[in-house]
């Protein structure tokens, strides 16, 4: 036995727990088993195959938790009106309402308020003018309720008028959530699909200790309120 093998054996012996040594004594013929943790990562190399995975949306469904049942029913109908199934999957195939429940539920409060108040208003309008919940309105009825509030607008400057703000922001969100979904992207030809990819930046040497108890770091309060000045510079935090 070479010297380095002797040393390795001694090292293994030194880190082997007593219970394992006792077991070894009972079964002399069995090969000694190294306890975890072992330096298994030393075996990783560029040829190591990576597991294949899929995005969760392809298999699983979001568990809605933010909007009420009535709000969600309105949002589902609104999503279907704004992005119906056509050449590509629609908002419902993209599970956009459930995604927005997650997204808006985790967004700053001002955005949640915009949605909840907007959905409530839309449902009330449907009951007032169509005598039924918005969830049950026809396409034409929905158009009568929504179209007066549609505006054209430039990036970062959605309408600020009440109701028009909700209608146009919700439309933009529903559209983005749908066209960025797996079903929509899967429906594109390869070239179009490649055109939708962008350079994604991973965290670059993040400070993994930023949240430690001894860190002086404290997070600031969540959201600055939208200003109410003569010239409105409203923000719609996402």
């Amino acid at each position, binding site marked *: 036995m070479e010297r380095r093998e002797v040393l390795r054996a001694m090292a293994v012996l030194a880190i082997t727990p007593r219970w394992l040594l006792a077991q070894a004594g009972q079964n002399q013929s069995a090969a000694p088993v190294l306890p975890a943790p072992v330096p298994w990562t030393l075996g990783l190399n560029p040829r190591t195959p990576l597991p294949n995975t899929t*995005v969760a949306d392809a298999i699983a469904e979001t568990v809605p938790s933010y909007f009420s049942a009535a709000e969600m029913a309105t949002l589902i109908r609104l999503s279907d*009106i704004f992005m*119906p199934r056509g050449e590509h999957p629609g908002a419902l195939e993209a599970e956009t309402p459930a995604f927005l429940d997650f997204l808006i539920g985790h967004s700053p409060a001002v955005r949640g308020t915009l949605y909840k108040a907007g959905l409530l208003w839309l449902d009330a309008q449907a009951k007032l003018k169509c005598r039924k919940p918005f969830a049950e309105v026809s396409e034409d009825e929905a158009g009568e309720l929504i179209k007066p509030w549609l505006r054209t607008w430039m*990036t970062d400057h959605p309408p600020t008028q009440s109701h028009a703000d909700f209608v146009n922001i919700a*439309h933009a969100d529903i*559209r983005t959530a749908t066209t960025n979904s797996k079903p929509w*992207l899967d429906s594109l030809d390869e070239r179009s699909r490649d055109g939708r990819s962008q350079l994604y*930046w991973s965290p670059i040497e993040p400070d993994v200790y930023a949240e430690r108890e001894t860190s002086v770091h404290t997070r600031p309060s969540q959201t600055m309120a939208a200003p109410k000045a003569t010239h409105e510079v409203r923000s719609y935090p996402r």
Partner: protein
Amino acid sequence: MSVQTTEVLIIGSGHSGGMAAKVLTENGIPCLMLNAGPIVDVTRQATKKLPDELPFRGFKPPGKLEHVFQASEFNTNVWVDEAEVPYTFNPAHPYNWVRVRLFGGRSLFWSRQSFRLSDYELKGRSHDGFGQDWPLDHAELSPFYSRVEEIMQVTGALDGPAQMPNGNFILDNDPWSGSMQRFIAAAQPKGIAVCKQRRATGRDGLASSVNLLLPDAERTGKLTSIQNAVVREITVDKHTGQPNGCKFIDRLSHREMEVRARVIVLAAGTLETTRLLLNSGLANSSGVLGHYLCDQIYGAGVVASVPEARNAAEHSKLMGGGAILPRFRNIAEKHPKFLRGYGMNVTSSTGGLGANNFAAYGAELDRKMQEYYGSGFHMSIMGEVLARYENHVRIDRQKTDAWGIPVLHVETQYTENEFNMASDAVDTMSEVCHDAGFEVLASNKTPNPPGYSIHEVGTARMGDDPKTSVLNRWSQSHDHKNLWVVDGAAFVSAGWQNPTMTILALSMRASEHLVDEMKKGNL
């Protein structure tokens, strides 16, 4: 180990710090560069992904980077986290402080539009009576601009009027597209010049400090750099009262360290430089440090469509290309509603138009987007924000960043001057579009919040009078002869032009003067 003394300490690695490092080291002066963030390796840290592969389907992660409108889920990790390095402001007057701390700073991601300031900006007070003149003029800066344009490989045409001086360009001789010709014809009667864009092409699509400046410095063997060095304060020799180095904190371990230097060059980016000076209690005998913060108004503009380019028309000669409209207000005549002026970025697009340009949804929207595809014509403002004393930054003693360093409080707002300017820009561009036969689809007169342009300048302005300025005409502190500021903090006014060429020219000029002073033994 004893603290070593380096010749020149450069804080910041963007365009201004990179230029200082290049000039100083090429003249034989050893430099130490500190940068608050890590080195970025695009081959290791970035990969192409589809939006459905990201947790938020491409939406900006909720609550993150609220004041960085430019951020998306794809690039969230390149910006400074507002939670990690917070800043404060009056909620009624928000400020969008857009920061990058990676090695190379914002030079990694800038738009590369490359303009000179003219004497309408450098001598603005002499022209209209507002603010202060710079202590130098275009003739003095011109040779430095020319050398910077050579390094940055700026393309353009020699078609600028006096308010947009021509430079040392790779000439753009491409013909105008048909839509641009119609726009030019409609703008001309209004006295609006339409010029070729001026853009730094750099090398391999990048015109950054990390590929055009720092490699030259490193080749000399005289540049040493430390990444993840978050500078807390500039230290002072208790015997001489002069700066003699700095204390910094390692970003990852939070270990505090210090270095010594004969000369300190600040290039941390306008507001970080001023924050450092304020936290160090230096260079403020005038009392104007932190004041005269200015930038440019962005966000106002017009989106139009060229009717003849719709319905999949052949538009290889009709559409395409971009232009810059140099400031045309308050040059020959005085505008009744605002001082100074604005430039416009103009783009004739061959791609699709955004859904928000149509008041429609569902199948009708799809039809509209298909019909209008390739017919977009975009105009967006770059308007000068006046340098006002009351627009300022100061230290907020109640809040610190992740490394315990007091943060900045930003107090600034736009005035009627800026709002009237934005309104005039939209009205004028809409008229030009109408005269050109274009259909205006959407417009916006409300500027984005201050800071959005990422062109924040001022707060340590230069001037001949030490009582009203922080720096002298060479970007050297009036109070401390071995303290220099080579970034945008030195600006006296913002102008309507992207500031990068001027920052680079000023840094080159300051650094060469610093070399002379060191060789003469004056420092």
